[in-house]
């Protein structure tokens, strides 16, 4: 039986088409809009997502930082209180266990946001590697997470929150912001490639906050958006997704996430394997179809009739109105502008290597 988020009833009321996702029942889209409309709402105005399925874990104590430094690939030694940093968590072979966000609440307290589908695996891994003076807790059920994404998010939050409580920089947050009477962790983060905020509040305040954001956003054309638009938006923005561009068999260097792997850092799980493996032999590219069609994940990619790799995700990108995909291919086999072909159900379709992100705003 799938779990319901505290916003379940609000989704039904809004005509959400509910599907099973990572152990939760969540709306894939809403009846009156659909994926394309929801996608365009975020790109052109603003949209609201229930992302309560994401997991939240907390490291607290004198050795919290030391633990993160060891279990995660990025460097948090210079992270300031109130800032957020993206990181990978690797296994001993350098494969990716998950990608996550680290929020620094104080020198001795960090909040980590992990993928719902990986939560159990992540928690087990983190617990297994705890050391020193640190308290670790899985607080996933203590948060409703709502993503307010799109340019008008700024005005909406501005109407509900005191100026000084609004995080100004990308990847910064306010821990106890008062958003229209609801106490939230308010961060300038998101997974759509747009300006936006993510809000974390207590489960019992969830519906109130959701409705408040919808009501305040009305004049800006806000609509609730589902998992479908979340996926097309992140793809169009060239953001990797766990299970597609990242797996336990792919290293972060192979999928071009070097920026989140600090090889100069003393030691972390997977570092030795990454060194031993040497220069990655594959790389992540973006491609755009020049023929009609759609390409999904798992399609073979060819350059001059030679197979060079496979797509990891792909769909129709509504804002640029082009079919796009990401692929992992042999390093240095193609460059931006190279004409390639993708095999879809036995047919080769023409495509072109393009820069990521696909959407340029």
């Amino acid at each position, binding site marked *: 039986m799938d779990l319901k988020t505290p916003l379940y009833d609000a989704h039904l009321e809004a005509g959400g088409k509910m599907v099973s996702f990572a152990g939760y029942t969540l709306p894939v889209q809403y009846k009156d809009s659909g994926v394309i409309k929801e996608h365009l709402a975020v790109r052109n105005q603003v949209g609201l997502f229930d992302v309560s399925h994401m997991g939240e874990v907390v490291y607290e104590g004198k050795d919290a930082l030391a633990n993160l430094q060891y279990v995660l690939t990025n460097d948090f030694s210079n992270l300031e209180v109130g800032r957020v940093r993206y990181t990978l968590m690797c296994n001993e072979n350098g494969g990716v266990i998950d990608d996550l966000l680290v929020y620094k609440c104080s020198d001795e307290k960090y909040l980590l946001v992990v993928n719902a589908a990986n939560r159990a695996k992540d928690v087990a891994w983190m617990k297994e590697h705890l050391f020193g003076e640190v308290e670790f807790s899985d607080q996933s059920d203590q948060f409703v997470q709502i993503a307010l994404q799109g340019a008008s998010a700024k005005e909406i939050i501005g109407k509900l929150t005191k100026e000084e409580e609004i995080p100004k920089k990308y990847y910064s947050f306010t821990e106890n912001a008062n958003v229209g009477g609801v106490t939230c962790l308010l961060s300038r983060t998101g997974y759509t490639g747009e300006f936006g905020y993510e809000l974390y509040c207590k489960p019992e305040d969830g519906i109130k906050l959701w409705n408040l954001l919808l009501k305040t956003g009305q004049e800006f054309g806000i609509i609730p958006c589902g998992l479908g638009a979340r996926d*097309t938006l992140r793809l169009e923005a060239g953001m990797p997704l766990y299970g597609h561009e990242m797996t336990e068999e792919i290293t972060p260097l192979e999928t071009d996430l070097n920026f989140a792997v600090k090889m100069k850092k003393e030691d972390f799980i997977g570092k030795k394997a990454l060194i031993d493996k040497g220069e990655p032999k594959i790389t992540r590219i973006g491609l755009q179809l020049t023929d009609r069609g759609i390409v*999904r994940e798992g399609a073979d990619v060819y350059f001059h009739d030679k197979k060079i790799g496979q797509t990891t995700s792909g769909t*129709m990108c509504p804002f640029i109105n082009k079919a796009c995909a990401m692929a992992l291919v042999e390093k240095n086999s193609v460059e931006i502008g190279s004409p390639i072909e993708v095999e879809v159900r036995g047919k080769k379709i023409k495509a072109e290597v393009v820069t990521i992100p696909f959407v340029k705003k």
Partner: protein
Amino acid sequence: MTKATELKFSKSHEWVLFDGDKVRIGLSDYAQDQLGDIVFIDLPDEGDDVTKGESFADIESVKAVSEAYSPITATVTAVNEELLDSPELINTAPLDSWLIEVEGVDEIEDLLSAEEYKKFCEESEEA
């Protein structure tokens, strides 16, 4: 606008319109609603044969690809070229957006009336 009552339906969610020797096949309203925004379709060519119970078209929505199955064994005499440029017409007017026209019907599966099809969809929703 075509009314559902003028059509017959397959259990794989296609509609069928008989017009003398010609038969048109499209996607049901239920099917397009399940698929969501349709962004691309791949249709057979004129002169191709379609076979009862077998796929004859790829229907791509933003979410996923699915197939349309022919309830009839026959020869394709026309394809709806308008849909190649505007596949979203299947969402906005499913019963007027035929996919292919066939002739020379050889075999045909048992089809449902609009009423029976509606009941069939409701039952599969509950299951």
